[in-house]
């Protein structure tokens, strides 16, 4: 378990040093004023994409299963994006912000726990309804 704490530490350190925990950088990205973080994400995706293929071919890692398409993907994605803009934070960077002393992250992280718990209560019902609507729409076609 300690190694997972160590990996988390490394990730939090990288997020902070990369400037990803600076809410203004996220707001700046959405205003198209400051594309630093778009660059960080782009390079990270590229490095991961190439690296995963190389490691996979060398037999050093197992294949990673892509996440499934699920009902709620679009609605959830839009809600997430709204939260991203309102806080200038995402789940990983909110945690690192706590450690850095960006104290509003107390509310962001508290809110994330609330939202996650709320999903635990309501999520299954919402996804059932979204799936049913999609089925009806498909039948109407």
């Amino acid at each position, binding site marked *: 378990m300690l190694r997972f704490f160590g990996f988390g530490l490394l990730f*939090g350190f990288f997020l902070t040093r990369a400037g990803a925990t600076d809410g203004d950088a996220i707001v700046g990205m959405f205003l198209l004023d400051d594309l630093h973080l778009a660059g960080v994400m782009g390079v990270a995706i590229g490095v991961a994409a190439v690296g995963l293929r190389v490691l996979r071919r060398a037999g050093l890692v197992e294949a990673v299963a892509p*996440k499934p398409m699920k009902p709620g993907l679009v609605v959830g994605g839009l809600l997430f994006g709204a939260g991203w803009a309102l806080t200038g934070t995402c789940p990983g960077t909110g945690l690192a912000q706590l450690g850095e002393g960006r104290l509003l992250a107390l509310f962001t992280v508290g809110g994330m726990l*609330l939202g996650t718990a709320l999903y635990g209560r309501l999520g299954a019902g919402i996804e059932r309804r979204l799936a049913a609507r999609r089925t009806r729409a498909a039948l109407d076609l």
Partner: protein
Amino acid sequence: MRKALSLWLPLAGFGLLFALAPTDLRRAVFVERWPFWAGGLAIGAFVLLLLRGTGQPLGVSTGFADACGVATHPELRRSWRLPFIAGIVAGGLVAALLAGGPHATWSAGLLEAVTGASLATKAALFTAGGALLGFGARLAGGCTSGHSILGVSLLAPSSLLATACFMAAGFAVTRLLLGGL
């Protein structure tokens, strides 16, 4: 490369760098914001290190679900995600300490244009935003880490769509709040 090295090699590398690097280099690594390519390289490499070292694909928001569920589901106490998210907090602290901090602040940065200086307003906005992040990530099946970094690097259709939604809503809400729309 032995699996354990995925963690210990980078930790030892940064430790040595902090101890031995000349002042300019140490400043560039531990105080100044990294240039975008260095930040991206580190985060992209982290995806690989975590997967190689532990077999786990990167993801953060599921850790919040495990944290919420641990009170009622004791078996979640063994989830690797709990020490992982605790470690992310520690990583922010370590980064701040090595940079000469931490400097505690209640500032909302550019978003103060929306909230003003009132702490109560900031608390309301950030709690509401956090709730949207938490709820939305579960509904979408992942967040910026699992969908936008790892999933997009795999060209997974679900992750490409989720990331497009994250970006579209983020763009629209920011424009709505801070002008330009």
